[in-house]
């Protein structure tokens, strides 16, 4: 087959073909780049296609099954009943709570990320620039569970936050906040406030990096031109910087939003007993054994992220990734 492939080439080669099996194979691959391409792509496509996409389809399939309420067994017949269950008030409540949290976390991350990203993009040079980069990368990569654990230490009743506020004589402020209906609780570590803080902390680096990348592409003289023309710093921010940074913010929000939608460990360790989507998925597939409902629940973030990505692409956020 190798010989035939070589002979079928009409133009005579300048050099004779390399000798031996290895040489012949090498020549064949050089002459037939598409064969080489196929050989290179086959293993990753097989792996990701079978293991990952295959599993996703298996999951999607399960969401159309239903669970027999008496025997607890899965009934493998196509039905939309499970999706109907998803629309029960309690489940809608979970979805709404999670989406609201994801939106708030995204907003807060953008606000905190902007100054860091702006400083790093416009003022940091040389050694400082490297320091800023590492300063964002290290928390991004350091252990997720350790970060949550650290916040447990900070937010627990006897932890650092209480100690700090006591030193500052501000405990009344904390107590006042914790007595509020939805955001409050026994201590910050068992309240939505705590969940929110930890979400922002853990996903913040995912926002800083794309915003910094977007801001780095803004020429400095644009900002100067704006102030030369008499704009106040606030006006320059609103009319020049913010619109140019927006694709970066949207790109970062893909991560902060998606990660919050799916996480179940943060609200489990730092939060109230009211569930988020991730926790609902986990408990449905685990303790409740209702895999169809768990699968239907995961379809919610997939659909939301589908729309989100579609919108983000239209805004040009993918170029900022």
């Amino acid at each position, binding site marked *: 087959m190798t010989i035939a492939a070589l002979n079928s080439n009409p133009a005579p080669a300048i050099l004779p073909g390399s000798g031996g099996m290895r040489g012949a194979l090498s020549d064949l691959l050089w002459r037939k780049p598409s064969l080489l*391409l196929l050989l290179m792509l086959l293993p990753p496509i097989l792996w990701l296609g079978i293991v990952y996409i295959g599993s996703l389809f298996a999951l999607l399939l399960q969401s159309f099954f239903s669970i027999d309420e008496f025997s607890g067994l899965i009934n493998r017949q196509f039905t939309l009943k499970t999706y109907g269950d998803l629309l029960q008030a309690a489940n809608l409540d979970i979805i709404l709570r999670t989406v609201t949290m994801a939106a708030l976390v995204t907003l807060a991350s953008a606000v905190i990320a902007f100054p860091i990203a702006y400083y790093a993009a416009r003022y940091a040079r040389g050694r400082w620039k490297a320091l800023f980069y590492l300063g964002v990368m290290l928390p991004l990569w350091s252990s997720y569970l350790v970060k949550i*654990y650290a916040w447990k230490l900070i937010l627990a009743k006897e932890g650092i936050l209480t100690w700090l506020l006591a030193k500052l004589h501000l405990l009344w402020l904390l107590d006042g906040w914790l007595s509020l209906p939805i955001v409050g609780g026994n201590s910050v570590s068992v309240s939505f406030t705590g969940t929110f803080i930890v979400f922002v902390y853990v996903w913040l680096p995912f926002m800083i990096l794309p915003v910094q990348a977007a801001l780095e592409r803004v020429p400095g003289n644009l900002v100067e031109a704006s102030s030369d023309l008499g704009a106040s710093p606030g006006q320059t921010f609103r009319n020049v910087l913010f619109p140019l940074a927006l694709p970066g913010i949207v790109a970062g929000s893909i991560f902060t939003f998606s990660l919050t939608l799916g996480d179940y460990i943060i609200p489990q360790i730092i939060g109230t007993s009211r569930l988020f989507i991730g926790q609902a998925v986990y408990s449905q*597939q685990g303790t409740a054994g209702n895999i169809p409902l768990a699968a239907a629940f995961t379809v919610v973030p997939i659909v939301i992220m589908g729309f989100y990505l579609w919108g983000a692409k239209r805004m040009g956020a993918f170029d900022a990734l």
Partner: protein
Amino acid sequence: MRSDRGQSAPLGLKIAAAGGLLFLHLPIFLIFVYAFTTEEKSFVWPPPGLTTQWFAVTWNRPDVWAALSLSVRVAAISTIVALVLGTLCAAAVSRTRFFGRETISLLVILPIALPGIITGIALRSAFSLAEIPFSFWTIVLGHATFCVVVVYNNAVARFRRTSGSMIEASMDLGADGFQTFRHVVLPNIATALLAGGMLAFALSFDEVIVTTFTAGQQQTLPIWMLEELIRPRQRPVTNVVAMVVVLVTLLPILAAYYLTRDGDQIAGSGK
């Protein structure tokens, strides 16, 4: 020419940026202090006293060693699989344009773009449909899938900077494809692969969400920590393990940073 060179930032911006960075780093440093505290039961701050005894206690805990060993083995195998798949994919995508190229890059990114819980439960339901029992390999299957992207990203960036004419020159000089790969391509992408491999290792070593779905009864180090967070047994041991985990993941990250930073000056980049 930038006219703002040497100009310093407004004070408010400096404070906000510094505050943001402090917010990112202080909690991690706190872990280090807690690893030395003499307090056993609660999270009391400031620590009533400092001691190193918990390092010895942790050292003698077989469950910690078992979890650590499983984590290291899983991360090593997943990294190797990710290195092979990620490099192949990156080479194909960066060298040629073909139908479905965009789809391939999406396929690689998807496992980390979608929330981990989706990857986790998808794999779990596939295992149950196919009746595959949980084992070491089911964990590796999940980890390798999302580690591919890290290797891919690093390799693609390096392939783009490596000039294609070097490969042609090598072939013109009579090297066959394998020799060219061995002596020209590999040395050029080696540091990027090393960096990608280290990041993949760190990612796998730290992964908890997907693992909870694919591990069955086995405990990787993060799963062990999660158990301790939900049902604490001996809190100081958790503190020590947390500190060790931070160190084990930070070192490869720093190494990966230095490797790819030097990579900018690698041969062929400016041609």
